[in-house]
């Protein structure tokens, strides 16, 4: 942990939740999961120290930071104008050579087996992926990138995305000091998945903590997240391990990587597969087991993104896990008011006073 504070780049297996300040929430989480023995697509994090280094060269006299701090949170026009200007300036700025070299070296190690290995570049903000999920989604993510140059370009784009109008407005509303701003950037192998989806380690409908809800569809998970397909749904009981409910939906399209242009393109699902469950029972069970392990590791219900790679073996990859937020807020309140003894519970129910 002590080392990573000064390191420019940290590999997933070298970091954990305790490193959030140096690698950001997403990176810390991926490291934590990797260390827990969970199969996460390999990768590394460009640390917040690099961001500080970058900003020191790109904003040597703190003029950007001062300008932002002087903005009024309600003045959206001023925020939009300044945001555009700062973003353009940062995207055009060169990274410090040491930072560029380290990213390029780690990228080539990551792609040692396959020089064309596509990677994702994701922002990893220091307050993202926390239970206060408000920061999440405000920063950018770039998928299916190949080549060190493009990776470096998008790492910079991630940092520049900190100056999007939404992010700036959000920081101004919280009166967040600009010197406290930091962001790590995750560079991670992409999984070209046969199917993928999300998993809640409690019921999203009722909050029930004894079940796991899984949604899955063909191809990449982005089409589920964006709501473009209605995924298959499975419910697994945590205690018995049984699949207690399932709904197989018609899945007409899927997202596949666009390796030429980068990013994602749409493709039709073969007719014969459209009404077939995208997961076998064994895969559903394996996913649920994985969900349970992750939940146990963190000690609270999780909201998980997963993918299963092409190939004969069921290779489940864990893409992301964060605490479930909607129902967890209600957990603080007990199911029934605590009582001195069992009889008081009986009297409360039968006295019509629960």
């Amino acid at each position, binding site marked *: 942990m002590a080392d990573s504070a000064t390191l420019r780049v940290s590999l997933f297996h070298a970091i954990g939740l305790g490193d959030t300040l140096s690698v950001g929430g997403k990176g810390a989480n991926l490291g934590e999961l990797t260390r827990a023995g969970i199969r996460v697509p390999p990768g590394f994090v460009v640390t917040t120290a690099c961001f500080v280094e970058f900003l020191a060269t790109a904003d040597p006299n703190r003029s950007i930071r001062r300008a932002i701090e002087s903005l009024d949170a309600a003045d959206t026009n001023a925020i939009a104008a300044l945001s555009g200007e700062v973003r353009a300036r940062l995207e055009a700025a060169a990274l410090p050579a040491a930072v560029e070299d380290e990213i390029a070296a780690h990228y080539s190690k990551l792609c040692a087996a396959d020089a064309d290995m596509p990677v994702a570049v994701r922002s990893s903000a220091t307050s993202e992926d926390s239970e206060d999920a408000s920061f999440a989604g405000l920063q950018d993510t770039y998928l299916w990138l190949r080549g060190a140059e493009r990776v470096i370009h998008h790492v910079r784009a991630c940092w520049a995305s900190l100056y999007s109008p939404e992010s700036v407005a959000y920081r101004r509303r919280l009166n967040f000091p600009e010197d406290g701003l930091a962001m790590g950037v995750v560079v991670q192998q992409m999984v070209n998945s046969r199917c993928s989806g999300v998993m809640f380690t409690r*019921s999203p409908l*009722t*909050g*029930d*903590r*004894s*079940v796991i809800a899984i949604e899955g569809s063909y191809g990449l998970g982005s089409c589920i997240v964006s709501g473009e397909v209605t995924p298959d749904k499975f*419910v697994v009981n*945590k*205690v*018995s391990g*049984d699949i*207690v409910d399932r709904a197989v939906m018609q899945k007409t399209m899927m997202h596949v990587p666009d390796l030429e242009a980068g990013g994602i393109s749409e493709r039709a699902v073969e007719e014969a597969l459209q009404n077939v469950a995208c997961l076998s029972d064994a895969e559903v069970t394996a996913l649920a087991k994985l969900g349970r392990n992750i939940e146990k590791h963190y000690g609270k219900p999780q909201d998980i993104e997963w993918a299963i790679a092409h190939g004969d073996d069921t290779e489940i990859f864990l893409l992301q896990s964060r605490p479930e937020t909607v129902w967890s807020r209600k*957990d*603080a309140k*007990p*199911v*029934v008011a*605590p*009582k001195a*003894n*069992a*009889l008081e*519970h*009986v*009297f409360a*129910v*039968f*006295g*019509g006073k*629960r």
Partner: protein
Amino acid sequence: MSRNGGKNPFPLPSEIAGVPGAEGWEEMYPYFSHFRPEDDERFWFYNSMHFPEPMPAFDAMSAEIAYIALGAVMTRVFAFPTALGIEHRIVNGRVYITSNAVTDPDEIQRRLAEFQKRAGHYYANWTKLFGEWKERMQALVREVKAVRVPELGDFEPMSTVETARGIAENHYVREAFNRTLELYSKMWQHHFEFLMLGYGAYLVFFQFCKTAFPEIKDQTVSRMVAGIDVLMFRADDELKRLARKAIEFGVDGKFTETGKAEDIMHALEQLGEPGRKWLAELEISREPWFNISPGDGFYHHERSWNDDLSLPFSAIPRYIQMVKDGANLDRPKERLTAERTKLIADYRELLATDEDKASFDQMLALSHEVFPYVEDHKFYCEHWFVTSFYNKMREFGALLARKGVVKNGEDIFQLRYQEIEEALADVALSWAAGTPCAGGQHFQPIIARRKKMLAVLKEWNAPPALGPMPEAIEDPAVQMLWGITSESLEMWSRPDSERDAHEIRGFAAAPGVVEGIARVLKDVSEISSVAEGDILICPVTNPSWGPVFGKIKAAVSDIGGTMSHAAIVAREYGLPAVVGTGQATRRIVTGQRVRVDGDRGIVTILE
């Protein structure tokens, strides 16, 4: 109670038409069980759980006397705050009931104060009081068996004269009959003494689990509470013991699945010492364990194993074969205990807060304390006592038959108990006068008519409910006692056309989904017709059906909840089960292919 959206889905009691051929059924039941004009204002539901068949005139007394006891416990003894007793009415032979709720908040508070003192006393002393209860119940069984029904022979026994008793046998006819009914009434009072409180404690835990885990299945909650050593399992265990003894004594060759009990017993007698040793073991098992019937304790025709040994004897050969094949027939108590412990620990662990874990522990501990009563009372009450009671009534039936009032002893059950009293007065008078009874001419046409009416009424399709449908069922006592929820009302109220003609719904009692060939048994006496891999469809199952559970693929019953013994046995055998369908034996025919979904409680007729 207000009407739901204008058109009421259920007929009013006054709208129920008679069934051709059963006109005048009212004569079989007391006046207070007939619907009254003002009953149209109230909501009633058919108690198919306890009374799945039209009531013979005598058996209707079991509704009357049981509800006298149930209501006393709810309304007066423990003062349940929100629920008084229930009322029953009989129409076309079927028993409908309604519950009386307390809604005035001040009255609820007044009753709650009483309830806390009264229920509190029982909960605080539960195990000790239950121990005393068992003694009392065994005494009641002894007493009812000991009731002496006079022979009324040619002359009074000489002993009456020698002891100068001064009271002739015809007096004792009345005394014995009254005594038998009194003991029956006392049994029901004791039956409900603990039952409502037992269910109450369970309901509190059940509601907690349903709130904490909204998707938990009823049967999962049941499994956390259900006992491992339950008296009702004992009879089946005894059969296994007898199978082992048969092998040990070298008499197993005498047992065949088709052999009659009396022939086998005769053959064993002939074998000399080893055969007699086995018969001695049989006697040990019979008292008290074979005092169980295949029913639920409400009908006279549900005889005990002791009354009809064909069921136990038809099961023994199979167990003998299993022992020879090296199977371990013992119930895996250690494994079952370990599974229950793990299930509890797993759900407890999933609770979000320490407060909830503490509440869970408190409620579960109370449930575990009270549940042995809920599970074991049936052996003492509905089985041991009730079968003994009906047998005592058969002695009165034999007396009436000897005196020509009825053609055969079983006909006594076609008479209301008040009519039997009349008939016995006739017997006592005619014995005293030295003349024949008038009762034959009077009662035999009545009996013949009633038998016909019952046969006709059996085919009547009783509506699940009558009267204005309530908006919702919220009273925990109603949900607890009758398993009736707003959802079941909604399902009942759908017109027949909207219900899937191939689907029968009940309670999901044991998990799993299987398809197979249905074997519909209306009566346990047909049990030997069950073949390997059949799906058993039966009115009610309890552990007296245990011997067939090893053969079948799934079980479906008309009656019973997720805590019923059918459910518990099915879970132990790992068989899917749907219970409490109300109508499976009427809608399914032997030989049909059916699917049993024990996860959702649905039976589908596939062809």
